[in-house]
């Protein structure tokens, strides 16, 4: 039978029972729409996480104390904090591949100003921090080498801290206290928003690491060292170089494992996006269940249709239709229903994704290939769930089919 005729027969049969076809289709429509909305939410989350990772800095390399995955007994990262300012100085002196390097001394403290007080993270860093994190100041300025060398009590505030400590406006030049130590505000950083972990990046105070060690934490250890390679291609080589220098600095023998961990931005990004990928998959899988239910609906209706049209099948067979002709006819019908449902589902899915984004403020991204996959998948559902009823139809005995009332 010709393709055009097959389509016509299918169309006729679909139009004959508009309400029934619509209800059957609804299962697929909801299934496809749900998959698309879920994928859009998942992709949106992934995209925003990637953006946040990108906001970490440029070609960034992080060095953390402790081994991450050494052979034998794994002590976990930061078990022994062996990163010291000496490590930092040695790296700064000997490294050839790094465009910037900064220690990070972490502490948390209450900051007090004349207008308010705020508990926040305090990072003691070097002047390179700005370029490594790609984080310029919006107002005022960053501290200088001179500030660093002479342990000056100066601070640069994240916007959240600035807003809470100086609600009346201009923070630059104002005085504040951290653990009773008076600091002068030099500048306010540009807002970065949430980080990949959902933390507010702007809830932070940046001070010279020398000041942090001398005046606040009092410890000689460094929480972390961050560095940036000259270009993305240099990152692996730079990591190797850092490793060599640190092993020398820590006097590690040939057989000994690293007592520090080096991570680059891509690894962090990969870890974060693999989490959201799993989430997206999970969401899509749950949504696909409704697609499965929709497929069962199609199968049910096609079985009813085959029974109803037993006589028609008998007529067609008597005048020379082969079993394969009948099979194709019913398959085309179920695929037509499911694909049409798929297309409508795509449209509703797009609308739904937009609506979800609009109402919740989440970013939603509908990948164009999702449309193709959704329609192809619904066609596959049509074939899969249409096959059994179609085969039932094709295997009818023409004599009995003609006699069927």
């Amino acid at each position, binding site marked *: 039978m010709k393709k055009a005729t097959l389509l016509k027969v299918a169309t006729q049969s679909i139009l004959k029972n508009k309400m029934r076809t619509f209800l059957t289709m609804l299962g697929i429509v909801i299934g496809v729409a749900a998959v698309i909305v879920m994928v859009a939410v998942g992709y949106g989350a992934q995209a925003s996480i990637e953006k946040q990772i990108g906001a970490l800095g440029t070609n960034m390399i992080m060095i953390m104390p402790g081994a991450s995955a050494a052979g034998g007994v794994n002590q976990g990262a930061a078990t022994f904090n062996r990163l010291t300012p000496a490590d930092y100085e040695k790296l700064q002196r000997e490294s050839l591949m790094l465009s910037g390097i900064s220690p990070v001394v972490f502490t948390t403290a209450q900051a007090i100003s004349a207008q308010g007080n705020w508990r926040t993270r305090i990072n003691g860093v070097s002047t390179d921090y700005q370029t490594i994190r790609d984080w310029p100041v919006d107002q005022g300025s960053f501290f200088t080498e001179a500030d660093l060398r002479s342990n000056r009590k100066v601070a640069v505030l994240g916007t959240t801290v600035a807003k809470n400590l100086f609600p009346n406006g201009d923070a630059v030049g104002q005085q504040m206290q951290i653990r009773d130590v008076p600091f002068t505000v030099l500048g306010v950083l540009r807002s970065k928003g949430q980080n990949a972990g959902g933390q507010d990046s702007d809830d932070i105070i940046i001070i010279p690491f020398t000041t942090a060690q001398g005046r606040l934490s009092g410890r000689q250890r460094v929480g972390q060292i961050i560095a940036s390679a000259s270009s993305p291609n240099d990152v692996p080589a730079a990591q190797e170089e850092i490793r060599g220098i640190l092993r020398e600095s820590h006097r590690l023998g040939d057989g000994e494992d690293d007592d520090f961990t080096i991570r680059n931005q891509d690894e962090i990004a990969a870890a974060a996006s693999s989490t959201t990928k799993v989430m997206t998959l999970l969401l899509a899988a749950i949504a696909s269940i409704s697609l499965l239910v929709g497929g069962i609906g199609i199968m049910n209706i096609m079985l009813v249709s085959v029974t109803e049209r037993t006589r028609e099948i008998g*007529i067609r067979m*008597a*005048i*020379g*239709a*082969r079993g394969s*002709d009948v099979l194709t006819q019913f398959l085309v019908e179920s695929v037509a229903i499911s694909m049409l449902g798929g297309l409508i589902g795509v449209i509703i899915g797009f609308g739904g994704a937009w609506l979800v984004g609009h109402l919740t403020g989440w970013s939603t991204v509908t990948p164009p290939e999702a449309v193709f996959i959704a329609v192809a998948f619904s066609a596959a559902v049509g074939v899969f769930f249409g096959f059994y009823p179609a085969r039932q139809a094709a295997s009818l005995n023409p004599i009995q089919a003609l006699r069927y009332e």
Partner: protein
Amino acid sequence: MNDSVPTVPDVIRVEGVTKVYHMGSQTVHALRGIDLTVKRGEMIAVMGHSGSGKSTLMNMLGCLDVPTAGTYFLDGVRVNGLTKNQLADLRNQKLGFVFQGFNLLARTSALENVELPLLYDRSGKKRDTRAMAQRSLERVGLGKRVDHHPSELSGGQQQRVAIARALVTEPTVLLADEPTGNLDSRTSLEIMALFQELNEQGITVLIVTHEPDIACYAKRLVEVRDGHILRDEPMANRRNASEDLRELGTENASP
């Protein structure tokens, strides 16, 4: 297979055909050795009571069923042992079916109903299916009703559409199973007149009926009973349906 296939084949040649059904533990002998030859241009009435085996014979002749034993040649083709698809193609190319209940597709125009067998044709020779269907409908006198749906046609007209559908593939034989069973006597006469007219044009017609009034328009009578052929003889008092129709017309006209 069989060397005795003649060069100009008979339309139908049935030799020693039996059909046995197994219904649970019961064994039903529907046909117990049938021999039947139908030549080109014949018009045969197959008569018999229900349960006589005539329906089974009809299904067999219509390639809808295969015999348990014996051989069946349709237009020189040995039907025994053909696959389902080959049987379907044979029905499509060599047979035209007319049923008691018309068996037209509802919500499908007369023209499309008639066109349907051509759409299942695999020989690729039948190209202009629309025109062929149109001509076939004209042949049964429905050239002006091509766009009507079965529900918009009378019983007689529906049966004419069915006959047009049977004719459209230019079959070797027209098989009609109780073609007048659902029609009143006047319309029955009209249909029989059409069959006679087609037969005069050279088409082989085989009609299954249990009504002697209908059988008498055939040229030859075959009576089946208990799975055997009881009688096979030329019709003694063959009637002309057109003439009967005219008489009926005058009867009706006179008050």
